Every structure is written in C-alpha cells, then in structure tokens.
C-alpha cells in the first residue's frame, strides 16, 4: 500500500464519501446524485463498464473504497459528455470520472494494465517534453509499450496506416528527431511543477 493510500485510509476511515469530496475533482457533487440511472445508459463503451457512473456514486456512498478506486470502468470514459448533457441533477459526471481515475492512480490503486491508463501517462509525458504533442513518438510509444517484440508486431500491423498518413503529409518521420516544440519548454515545465506542488500539498494536507 502506498504511504499516501494508508494515510488517506487512516484519515477518512469512516467516510469514503468525505474522502472523495475533499480530494477528487468535482467530488463534492457526488452526494447530489439521485440514482435515476440516466447516466448509466449514456457511456458509449458502457457494455464494457462493470460499474456505471450511477453505480460508482452509489458505491462511494456505501463506502466501497477498494472496489471503486481499483475499478477499470472510469478509465473507459471517452469524454463524450453525454452524461453531463443529460443528468437531471447537473452532476459534472465526466469530470468526476476523470477525477476518480486520477485519484486512484495517485494512490497506486489504478489497474496496472489498463490500456487507456497507460496511454494517458504516455500522452502526458510526451506533451511535457516539448510543450506540444509529438504524434509520431506518441504512436510509437503506444505500439512499443508492451516491449520490443510486441512493438514490432503492432507497428507492422499499422504499417499501411502509417504510410497512408505520410503520403498525405499528415505524419512526418522527421518528427522522430526533435519535432515541434514551444520555445519556452523549461518555463512550461517549471510552471507545471509549481502547479503539481500546490496540488500535492493540498492533498497531503488533507491526509
């Protein structure tokens, strides 16, 4: 168990709802859910979700901490905003799903091999290097995330796609060497580091 996770368990031992309200993005909205079920039918990949948003909100109130934070459901959120457009109580459901996923990851409870969880990390690391996303390296990192052998297989399976994109000048092999960048990368990194420190301190302070 990560230190932060045990500290949080200790601090909020009686109320997972309070823990979510204090630490999860838009978590203070969870108690407003009236369990109508509209959101449960809204997720495009809903068939693959073990726990719909409605269910997750119920589980939070029931104190099912482990089950919620280790669920892979919220990682399959496509950010389609169907739920927000429809929820009669106005819950910012998309952001709560993102917030739960992020908090689970912070505590080390997110499922390890969930592909979108891995992708979101790769994406963030990619953009932090140059301040802009390098699509070529992003693609390669995803293909190679499960090791070299699998990477070659994935790259070959998508070879035609890559060639098509290059022919249409919508992918550039030269991006591998350097590529697009903002000018002030070090400033951007400094700024984000500061933002992370502030956010970490807020959550540590809560623990």
């Amino acid at each position, binding site marked *: 168990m990560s230190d932060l996770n045990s500290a949080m368990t200790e601090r909020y031992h009686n109320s997972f709802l309070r823990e979510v309200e204090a630490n999860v*993005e838009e978590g203070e909205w969870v108690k407003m859910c009236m369990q109508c079920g509209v959101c449960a039918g809204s997720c*495009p*990949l809903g068939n*693959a979700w073990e726990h719909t948003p409605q269910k997750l909100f119920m589980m939070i109130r029931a104190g099912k901490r482990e089950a919620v934070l280790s669920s892979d459901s919220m*990682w*399959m959120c*496509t*950010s*389609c*905003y*169907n739920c*927000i*457009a*429809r929820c009669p109580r106005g819950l910012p459901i998309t952001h709560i799903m*993102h*917030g739960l*996923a*992020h908090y689970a*990851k*912070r505590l080390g409870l997110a499922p390890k091999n969930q*592909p*979108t*969880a*891995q*992708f*979101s990390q790769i*994406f*963030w*690391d990619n*953009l932090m290097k140059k*301040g*802009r*996303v390098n*699509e070529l390296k992003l*693609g390669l990192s*995803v293909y190679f995330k499960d090791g070299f052998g699998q990477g070659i297989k994935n790259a070959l399976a998508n070879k*035609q*796609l890559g060639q*098509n994109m290059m022919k*249409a*000048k*919508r*992918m*550039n092999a*030269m*991006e591998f060497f350097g590529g*697009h960048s*903002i*000018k*002030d990368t070090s*400033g*951007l990194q*400094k*700024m*984000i580091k*500061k*933002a*992370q420190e*502030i*956010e970490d301190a807020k959550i540590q302070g809560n623990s």
Partner: protein
Amino acid sequence: MAKKEVSYYPGCSSQTGASSSNMMRATQTMCDELDIQLNEIPDWNCCGASIGYGSGGELPRLTLSARNIALSEQHNPGQEIVATCAACWLSTREAKERLHEDANMFRDANTALNEINLKLNNQTPVRHMVEVLVEDIGFEAIKAKIKKPLQGLKIASYVGCQTNRPFGIAEESFENPVYLDHLIESVGADSIPTYEKKVQCCGGALAFSEPEKSQEMIHGIIEAAYDHGADLIATPCPLCQANVEIYQDQINARFGSKFNMPVVYYSQLMSVAFGRNSKDSALDGQIIRAKSLEDIAGK
C-alpha cells in the same frame, strides 16, 4: 465586410506534418475568403486534451490552458480566442470557466503562472470557429460567397461529441444540432437530416488505446452514412475526422465491410465552394480521396 481579427489557437494536431495539418490549410483558405484574420497565440502549448487527466491532475491541466489564455491576453489583447479543434476549445473554455468560478483555483493557477512572469486576467471569451461562422458571419453571407455550388452531393453531417457537448453552439440541441446541415446546404449540397449517427461518439482518444471497442462505433457511423446514400461525411472535429477516415482498412478487415467513404472538414467544403483549388482546400490531405470534390475544384 470588415476584417475580423481573432486570437487563434491551432492545437498540436494542426501543425505542419501532423494529423490535421490538412484542416489547418483549409481553415486558412476559408478565413482568407471570409476576411477573418487568424493571429496565432505566440508560443501556445498543448491543452492536455481530454486524456491528460490521468497523469495531469486538475490544477496542472487548468494551468496549461491558463498559460495559453494569458499569452493571448498579453499578445493579442482585446481579441477573442478561437479554436478549430474540438478538444482544444473544450479544454480552454472549461479552464476559463472553472477558474472563473473557483477563486482558490484561480489564485493557484496564477501562482504557477507567476513562475514564468505571466498573469491571467481571464477576461477573454473562448470560442469555436463554428460559432464565428454561424453567429458573426452568418449563413447568408456564406451563401453570397459561393462560386461553385456543390450541387448534387449528398453529405452526412457528423458533429461528434465535443463540438456539441457540453457547451455546444448557441440555440442548438444536444441530440440533434443542425448547424452543420445548414452549412452543407449553404454550400449548395444536400444534407441528410435523418442521419442518426450525427452525435455518436467515435471513441476519441480510445480509438488509439482501445481500438476494437472504438472501431465498432466507427463502423456504425460509416455504415449509417452509406445507408442514407451519402457521398461524403463532413465533420468539424479533427479527431473525429481522423478516427472515421484512417481506420477504414482495419474496419473492413474486422467487419468484412467494403467502406471507402471520404471524410472531410466543413472548411474544405467551403474552400471548394468558394472557388479555391484542390491544394488550397487541402484535398491532397485525404487518405480516402474525395473525388467528387476534386472534380468540382478542378472545373
């Protein structure tokens, strides 16, 4: 028409050699014709897209967009920020609103910005290009510019998610927005008012991380267009465009379909209808060629 100047946020995928560089070219052409001047935000950074949440966290993510807004306020004062990428628009507008509602978050974002001597006032509207077209320019003015109507073309309007939800275009419904149909009709083509996949999600970033699940949805989006006899699919969103166009080979292999459906941007339709050539309209950026548009552009 007087020249309109906007502070333009192109986004990563619009850069030269990136996946929606074709959209960038057609946007530039469309704006030249409509007398809209795009003043790029100097040294803009990636907004983190929707998928940035996993590692990013709330404040770092909001701060990314805060930097862009602050740069815009500093260098392009008094100009509205306009984005063409749905996710860029959404992230930036969401950040603006969240920082407006939450005074602590606003203070914290400014503390982070202060590291690089930037300051966010947060007084700048954040708009989508489509809002500029619909609300400021207007369908009538667009019609008046048409030199080559796209007569006889049947075009399915695929609006997708994030251009439509949660903010959407003023006075449009979430379940059936009609501005793209109106744009299609304004350039002289036929829209398909009953196209039922108009706001169906394509999977977004998950088309990359969960291809099997996403391609099933994309399959449905294209199949419905064929069912209605569409010649083309048109969309405002760069990720929608890429997702629906570039995986058609893989989808055909997976589902035994024979799809070969061109997917274009509204800005490409307008560029062609305004009389510009294939190159200015970025038709050479198609993976699946839009022959019917090339023919009109070549006339």
